[in-house]
């Protein structure tokens, strides 16, 4: 029996995944950067929020804001290191370096924050509405609404603004863009920072639902990968649908069968899709 609670839980989890996937797919579409450290950015978003709150007694929102700022800077630095490889579309070296980043970030986080699981509380968790016989907290509503708003905003920027046109042009041919006076390095750094901020936002929001460890991250990157494959690289709306689908699947399959197999089954679906419908890398909305 599928329950309302499972569906609500699936939509909330899916919205968190959507926030995680949005930055990753835009980064891949715009700069051809496959960021294997994206899950660690999620983990750090949660930990920086927690750390700022416990160190300074700051409220949740301030901790979350601090995490977004810190992760924007770290994201920009990471892209700075990757710049040459990105301009040359050197995919193999990019993957190796971002894989390296993921290990470095995990180690640094463990040194700074310790090996214990941590969790933070949001003031919105105490407030809730009842849907059927299920409690839906304001924090969960916030996650869903934020995901929708950010997807809509991203889609509008890509489609309707000059910045969006420049990002799409850069995705197609950064060297040609240089001849138009555009500077790919700035766009790449901006897009990476945006992607890091979204990962951190997902981490900072979802850590109120379940605790985080510094070793977290690998699973998140794999899930993101699945979502982007299902939704299409750089396809904003496709990714939102895919994320919600994966969220619902995780919630329902986890409840009805076993949470232990969800990731395995998701990858099986991806393998089948790869075989029957291989798709190129393009930036659409």
């Amino acid at each position: 029996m599928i329950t309302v609670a499972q569906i609500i839980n699936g939509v909330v989890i899916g919205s968190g995944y959507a926030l995680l996937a949005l930055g990753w797919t835009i980064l891949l579409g715009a700069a051809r950067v496959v960021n294997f450290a994206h899950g660690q950015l999620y983990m750090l978003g949660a930990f920086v929020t927690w750390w700022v709150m416990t160190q300074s007694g700051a409220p949740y929102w301030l901790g979350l804001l601090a995490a977004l700022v810190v992760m924007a800077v770290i994201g920009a630095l990471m892209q700075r290191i990757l710049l040459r490889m990105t301009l040359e579309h050197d995919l193999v070296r990019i993957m190796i370096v971002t894989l390296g980043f993921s290990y470095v970030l995990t180690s640094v986080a463990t040194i700074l924050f310790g090996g214990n699981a941590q969790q933070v509380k949001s003031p919105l968790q105490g407030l809730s509405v009842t849907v059927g016989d299920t409690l839906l907290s304001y924090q969960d509503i916030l996650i869903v609404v934020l995901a929708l708003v950010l997807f809509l905003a991203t889609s509008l920027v890509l489609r309707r603004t000059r910045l969006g046109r420049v990002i799409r042009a850069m995705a197609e041919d950064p060297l040609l863009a240089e001849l138009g006076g555009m500077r790919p390095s700035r766009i790449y750094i901006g897009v990476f920072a945006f992607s890091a901020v979204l990962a951190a936002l997902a981490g900072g929001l979802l850590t109120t639902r379940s605790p985080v460890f510094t070793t977290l991250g690998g699973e998140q990157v794999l899930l993101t990968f699945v979502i982007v494959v299902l939704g299409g690289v750089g396809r904003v709306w496709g990714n939102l649908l895919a994320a919600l689908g994966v969220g619902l699947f995780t919630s329902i399959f986890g409840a009805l069968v076993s949470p232990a197999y969800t990731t395995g089954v998701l990858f099986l679906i991806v393998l089948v899709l790869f075989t029957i419908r291989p798709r190129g890398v393009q930036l659409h909305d």
Partner: protein
Amino acid sequence: MTAVISTTGLSVRYGGNVALQPVDLEVPEATLVTVVGANGAGKSTLLGGIAGWSRGRPVFGGKVALRGVDITSKSAPDRARAGVTLVPESHSIFYDLTVAENLGLQRPRRGVEGHVFTLDEVYALFPRLSERPGQRAGSLSGGQRQMLAIGRALLANPQLLMLDEPSIGLAPQVIVEILQVVRGLVDGGMTVLLSEQNVTAVMGVSDELILLERGTVVLRGKPDDVKSDHRLIDAYLGMES
């Protein structure tokens, strides 16, 4: 009067391979200078050297000045912003963007000398573009792509407009049409450096011809003065075959 663009000893090397021997070149205001030469002679390399740009990993030598101001140390985007505009030979527009989006990429530059092109003027110059602003550029015909590339370049308000083999792959009547537009721009005050293999097509419209052979300038002069030169005829026959 200083030339719009001048190079002193401009050279380009790819690893150990010298693609362009040191060249001194001047393109005076409101003239059409055409670089001709066979495949691999170095035409694209010369234009790229002036723009500070290449799809490979070049090593540039010598100096480039824009209206007497040294721009050698500027990057390709900065030279483009200063008014050195290159339309490269292949993939010169963004296929994933529409016609209108391609034309809307350029942020209008302020405080530039000379005529400032508007979108309406570009559409008036190439009416076939104005009929399909929402069409994906990748689905345009070869001639339409070239028109879009030139239109995009004009909106950058170039001091020097460089077109690298705009005739490539186009039907003869389209080549004539595009070269007529280019000549019209020059008559209106634009300064253009063109590269071409099709010598016949450019003879009548160019103010000066520069013949490149294996990275070296072997001949230059007004079309009437060089048209019977055996080197040009040889090169030209070689290109036709």
